[in-house]
C-alpha cells in the first residue's frame, strides 16, 4: 500500500509536469472548447518505457510525434506481481515554440524536420522487487526519415485545400467578421484515405533513440536517492512492402545487469487488419542468450485511444537466471491535443 501511495504521488507529479508544459491542455476558458482528441496515425512507443524495458513492443520504430501522449501500462507477469506504470511523451520542438515557415521548409530542412519528429519521454513504474522504490525512465527518440510521412506527400495539400475552399454561395455580401470551427464534409475521410494509401505504398523509415532507467529509493527524488541508472541506445528500421505489410528490425545496446554491455536484436512482421495492427516479433537477448517470441495487437478502440496488448516471453527480471517468463501487458495510449477554438 505504501508503494502504491508513492507511485500515485509520483504519477501525480508527472501529470502536474504535463500540465505545466506550454502546449499542455489547460482548463477551459471563455471561448476555448473542451479539448478534442486526435489520433491520426501511429502513436509511437514511449522511449522511456523502452528504457525501462517494459515497452509492449520490443522491435520499435518511429512515427510522427504527437504534442502530448500519455501511456498507461499494466503488466501481468506469470508467477509475479502485477505492476503499473505511466509515461508522458511530448514533442519539445512544438511544445516550446518551434515553427516552420511552410510545408516546403519542413521538406527542405532535415534538421528542423527531425527536431519536429523528436519525442522526449518521462516514465515511472512500480519496482516489482521493492514496492518502496520506484523505477523511472527518461528517453528521447528521433525519426531520421520516414517515407510515409504525410507531409512529404505533395498531392495531399491540393486535395485538402480543395475541400477547405468554400463554395461560391457560402460567402455573401455584408461587412461582417467572425471566427469559428467548421466541420468540412468529406475532409476526415479524404485525409484518412490518403494517409492509408501512403502507408500502403512501399517505403522505409529509420528512428534512433536513447533512454536511461534507474530507481528512486523510497520514492523520494533527490541526488542521493537515484541508484542503478542504466543507459540504452537503439535504432529501428521499417521496410513497407506493397499492400502495407511491414518488416521491422531493431537493435538495442545497453548497460546490462550481468555484464558491462548487452544488446538485443529483433525482427518483426506487422500488418493492419481493419482497426487492428498485428505484430509478430522475435528478439534475441545477448545477456541471457535467449530468443523470445512475442505478439502484439494494437486496437483503435475509439478514435482517440489505442489499446495495446502484448504476449511474449522475456528473461527473468534479475537477468541472472536462464529461465524465461511469459508476460502479458496491456497499455492504453491516450493522445490528447488541442485542435482549435469554437
Amino acid at each position, binding site marked *: 500500500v505504501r508503494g502504491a501511495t508513492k507511485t500515485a504521488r509520483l504519477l501525480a507529479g508527472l501529470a502536474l509536469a504535463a500540465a505545466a508544459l506550454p502546449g499542455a491542455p489547460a482548463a477551459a476558458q471563455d471561448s476555448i472548447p473542451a479539448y478534442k482528441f486526435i489520433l491520426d496515425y501511429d502513436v509511437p512507443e514511449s522511449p522511456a518505457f523502452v528504457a525501462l524495458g517494459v515497452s509492449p513492443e520490443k522491435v520499435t520504430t518511429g512515427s510522427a510525434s504527437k504534442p502530448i501522449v500519455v501511456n498507461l501500462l499494466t503488466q501481468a507477469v506469470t508467477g509475479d506481481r502485477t505492476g503499473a506504470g505511466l509515461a508522458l511523451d511530448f514533442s519539445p520542438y512544438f*511544445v516550446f515554440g518551434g515553427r516552420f515557415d511552410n510545408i516546403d521548409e519542413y521538406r527542405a530542412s532535415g534538421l528542423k524536420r527531425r527536431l519536429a519528429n523528436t519525442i522526449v519521454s518521462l516514465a515511472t513504474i512500480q519496482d516489482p522487487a521493492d514496492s518502496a522504490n520506484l523505477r523511472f525512465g527518461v528517453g528521447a527518440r528521433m525519426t531520421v526519415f520516414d517515407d510515409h510521412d504525410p507531409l512529404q506527400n505533395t498531392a495531399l495539400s491540393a486535395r*485538402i485545400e480543395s475541400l477547405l475552399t468554400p463554395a461560391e454561395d457560402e460567402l455573401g455580401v455584408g461587412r461582417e467578421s467572425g471566427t469559428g470551427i467548421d466541420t468540412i464534409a468529406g475532409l476526415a475521410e479524404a485525409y484518412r484515405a490518403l494517409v492509408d494509401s501512403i502507408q500502403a505504398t512501399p517505403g522505409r523509415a529509420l528512428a534512433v533513440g536513447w533512454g536511461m532507467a534507474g530507481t528512486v529509493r523510497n520514492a523520494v527524488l533527490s541526488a542521493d536517492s537515484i541508484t542503478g541508472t542504466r543507459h540504452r541506445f537503439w535504432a529501428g528500421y521499417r521496410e513497407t512492402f506493397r499492400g502495407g505489410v511491414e518488416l521491422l528490425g531493431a537493435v538495442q545496446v545497453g548497460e546490462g545487469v550481468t555484464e558491462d554491455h548487452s544488446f538485443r536484436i529483433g525482427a518483426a512482421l506487422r500488418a493492419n487488419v481493419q482497426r487492428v495492427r498485428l505484430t509478430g516479433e522475435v528478439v534475441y537477448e545477448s545477456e541471457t542468450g535467449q530468443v523470445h517470441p512475442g505478439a502484439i495487437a494494437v486496437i483503435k478502440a475509439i478514435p482517440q485511444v489505442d489499446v495495446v496488448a502484448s504476449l511474449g516471453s522475456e528473461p527473468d527480471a534479475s537477468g541472472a537466471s536462464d529461465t524465461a517468463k511469459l508476460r502479458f501487458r496491456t497499455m492504453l495510449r491516450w493522445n490528447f491535443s488541442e485542435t482549435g477554438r469554437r
Partner: protein
Amino acid sequence: MADRTCTVRGNGGPLVVRLTADNLLNSGARFILVDSTDTIRSNWTMQTGDDGRDEHRITEFAPSALAGFYIKWLIRTCSRHPSAESGTIRVEVFQDGVAAPMSPLASWTQKVPQCSTGTAFRITDFCDLVIQ
C-alpha cells in the same frame, strides 16, 4: 472591433491580394470584391499550398475605380502535422510590390484543428478600400 481599412493609391498599379499560412497549415479561401451598392463585382479562390501562400491580382478594376468597394473573405485552415497545433494566417494587399497600409492588420495567430479530424478554423472578415 472597428472596421478594417486598406489604403491604396488611386494612381498606383493593380492590387494584389496575398493569403499566407505558416507552420504546416493548409488554407483554402474564397474572396469577393463588393462595390458600394453591395454587389459582388469579382469572386475568386485562394489556396496556400506547400509554400504557404497564394496571390491574386485584381485586374478587372483600376485602383481609382475602387472607391467604396470592400474585399471580403472566408478562409478555412487546418494543420497537417499532429504536433503543429497553431500558426499564423494573414491577408495582405500589395500595390506596386509594397504592402498597402491596413488597419487593423488582417492577421490571426491561432490554434487550428488537425486536418485529420475533418474540422477547420474559419475566418470571415473584410477590408474597406480607401483610395488616396
